[in-house]
């Protein structure tokens, strides 16, 4: 099977159209960024908290907001999270001026107090909020299996196993909807099941995750993230300039990279993708990856230039793009397939990460073919024009005038 076999497409002939397209995309992206007042920075960079709770039945966002706000925890937004059947809610809390406020703990207590007041009474044991450690201690104290009376039993080890099994069962389903689900844990004896029903309860919700970033750490992460992106651009520039011994290749490749990064960032703004640490990681990967295609094209240009010195540069570059077209499209396509699987199956946590790669690969492939190489031509032609204008100093003014026309 062959795709793009012996193509002879005139990429450079239409270079103005492609550059215009890119400028349009960049403008749209910039407009989106301006309209949204910058990228949708996540809690990693702005500071503040994101807390996810899972409920045993369909949660009411307004009710959750009301409860948490009443407990004097400021709420930025409450929204449903992940797939609807998971009954999850994402609660955002803005950055607190004072470092170290445990908003996740406060929100959890407020929800318990409002939805399940029994959970706060001394002596209540909520299986959905407590861990295996306290459960084991409680089991050991009550000894429902009456192991203390048996000569060869090791109550500590046995209850540790039972507690781990019950909490493991909870983990595999997020939370227990009823005490019967807990009692039905494999390996739990009828005596323990009975004890669970008498001595423990299941509250209506549990904590899935909490990210709380204070002002200091947020500031550190912002600074480090910005440096990582800038340094990796610089490293790519240095590498390509060194490798191809030509500032035009290096600069064109980096312009293409910034082009890819910016358009993808604009897409993130349009689709309200939140920029978290992992999303920045995706951007850095994209920078490394998208330079690949460009390098392959440049390599071929260099090779062809050594072979046929006399061929005009524009024609040679066009031929090089055509020769590598099949490879460029196929490798990008294969990586795209992988990222597609990640985007649809990888889950909510990786959604932003795979979004950036998904669209970044498309934009990066486009720029390697239609932007990076034509830019080299534009640069070289401009240099040639300037060199032609230079020898006679009197001609400089004329050159300026002619360009001005």
């Amino acid at each position: 099977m062959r795709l793009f076999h012996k193509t002879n497409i005139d990429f450079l002939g239409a270079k103005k159209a492609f550059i215009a397209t890119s400028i349009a995309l960049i403008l749209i992206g910039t407009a989106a960024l301006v309209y949204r007042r910058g990228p949708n920075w996540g809690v990693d960079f702005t500071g503040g908290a994101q807390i996810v709770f899972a409920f045993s039945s369909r949660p009411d966002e307004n009710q959750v907001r009301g409860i948490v706000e009443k407990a004097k925890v400021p709420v930025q937004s409450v929204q449903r999270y992940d797939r609807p059947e998971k009954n999850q809610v994402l609660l955002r809390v803005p950055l607190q001026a004072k470092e170290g406020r445990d908003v996740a703990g406060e929100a959890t207590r407020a929800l318990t107090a409002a939805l399940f007041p029994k959970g706060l009474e001394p002596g209540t044991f909520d299986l959905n909020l407590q861990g295996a450690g306290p459960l084991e201690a409680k089991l050991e104290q009550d000894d429902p299996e009456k192991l203390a009376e048996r000569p060869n039993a090791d109550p500590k080890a046995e209850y540790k196993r039972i507690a781990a099994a019950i909490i493991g069962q909870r983990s595999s389903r997020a939370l227990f909807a009823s005490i019967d689900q807990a009692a039905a844990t494999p390996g739990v004896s009828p005596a323990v099941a009975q004890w669970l029903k008498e001595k423990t309860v299941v509250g209506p919700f549990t904590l899935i995750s909490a990210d709380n970033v204070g002002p200091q750490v947020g500031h550190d992460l912002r600074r480090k993230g910005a440096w990582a992106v800038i340094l990796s651009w610089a490293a790519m520039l240095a590498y390509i300039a060194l490798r191809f011994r030509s500032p035009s290749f290096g600069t064109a490749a980096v312009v293409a990279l910034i082009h890819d990064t910016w358009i993808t960032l604009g897409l993130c703004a349009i689709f309200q993708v939140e920029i978290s640490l992992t999303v920045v990681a995706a951007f850095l990967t994209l920078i490394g990856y998208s330079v690949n295609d460009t390098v392959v094209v440049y390599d071929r240009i260099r090779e062809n230039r050594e072979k046929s010195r006399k061929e005009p540069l524009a024609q040679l570059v066009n031929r090089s793009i055509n020769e590598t077209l099949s490879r460029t499209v196929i490798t990008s396509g294969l990586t795209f397939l992988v990222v597609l699987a990640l985007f649809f199956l990888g889950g909510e946590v990786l959604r932003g990460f795979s979004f950036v790669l998904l669209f970044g690969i498309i934009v990066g492939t486009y720029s390697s073919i239609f932007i990076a190489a034509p830019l080299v031509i534009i640069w070289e032609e401009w240099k040639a024009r300037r060199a032609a204008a230079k020898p006679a100093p009197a001609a400089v003014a004329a050159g300026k005038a002619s360009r001005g026309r």
Partner: protein
Amino acid sequence: MKKPTGWRIALTLAVLVGSVVAYLWRGREALKVSPTAPPNPTIADVLKNGLKLGLDLKGGIHLVMQVKTADALRLEAQDAVEHLKAEAGKKGVALGPISVADENGFAITLTDATSPSALKDLLKSSLSPTDWQIEERGREWKVVYRDGARLDIEAQAVRQAVETIRNRVDALGVAEPAIQAQGADRIVVQLPGVDDPARVKEIIGTTGLLELTLVDDKGGPYSSMDAALQAYGGKIPDNLHVVEGFSEDADTRTRTTVYYVLQRAAAVTGRDLKNARVGQDKFNQPAVEFFLNAQGAAKFGRVTGDNVGKRLAIVLDKRVQSAPVINSQIKDNGIIEGNFTAERADSLALVLRSGALPAEMVVLEERTVGPSLGLDSIRQGILASVVGMLLVFVAVGLYYRLAGLNAILALILNSILLLGAMAWINATLTLPGIAGFILTVGMAVDSNVLIFERIREELEGGKMPKIAIDLGFKRAFGTIVDTHVTTIAAAAFLFQFGTGPVKGFAVTLVIGLAASMFTAVFVSHLLFDLVYGSKEKVEAVSI
């Protein structure tokens, strides 16, 4: 084109077997130390444990905490002041009022009775001149830390905090905790596999400073700060201070905040504690009983004996828990009441047993991943990886036929090598790391495509099949190196910048790409040689 020589086959097999063995060995080692391992692990259990999982997959807590070192500096300055007062008493030097104003040291206000030269001699003789510096400004003298001493005290406070947190975490029974000092005053705490984050956070973050302090005769409780001030005519004497507490209605069990006036110097502190355990208060509610060591008991006995009929405040982390009347001399034990739940009382006893933190701790960053989210992430990550790989296999197989099969074998080896290497260096697999794993598959196949496209070109250029294959590998090599260098450079920046999960991604990506240099170039070439190398004449290549 060469015949498939023995050493190339041997090397490839050695790498394959080595990776598998490294992975299985690591899995077995992990099972040996795992507290939740089944008694007779199956091969599936071993496979599950080959890689160390990050907090985002295993569930757990990541905390960055800041030690308020100012607290420690203040305490140390307070000690120096006490020492100075004692020395002044011995030598008969008159001191003016002394106050520890901030964390830099303390200030002495000279009175008419103070002789500046005598005070200077006293300061020089009783405080180490390498630690303290005296700044004379008229009648207001400041005694401040020198930088060396300040840094020492701060470092000591951080070390002690790390130690205390470690004790508490060990008491909780968390497997494989990581507690490290970071920078001047930060501590990073990573606790994998924690299933009740709220309790663990509370246990780590509570200072746990217990003070037993006499309540002043007019010490309240007062309903407000102002009321307390008024009782003392607007100014609380220097040796006393106001501390918040609560009073509880015995019938309705509701709490209101009240204010006590206590002596500034505690009679006994948590440093003199021998043990603490859960007990019961007079309402049969859970409470914490504590026991003092010999030194503490002697002090406590003296104070309670001298002050029968007065009240003693039990102060925990600068809050009065209760202030019972001393009925008779008490020696070595007491009880802390506070309407605790059984779990809270249990946590508090644990905190008191492990000793107080040297200073208040502030959480700068918290990442909590519940166990169910971790499990979910693993399931989704594996599904996405398998589907992504299969998609690539099908596409490559259809497009390059037999050569595609070659690439598929190289990719499978690449994955095995990546897993084996990660197990070998005990790298941590994170959720972005799983993404890195499948991205590597997509990128590793890049090298194969480069080579195959090149071979096709050479074939079209009229080269003989065997020569075309060799040329394809040779000519594509430079480009392959280029593409790897750029991606690995980007990953290096990622490693520098990233926190745990992102670092895991960078590590996976770098190892995967390095492995692909071996599999796509060396192994893939060997596979071609195995198919075509021994034949005299090759008519066509399936590519």
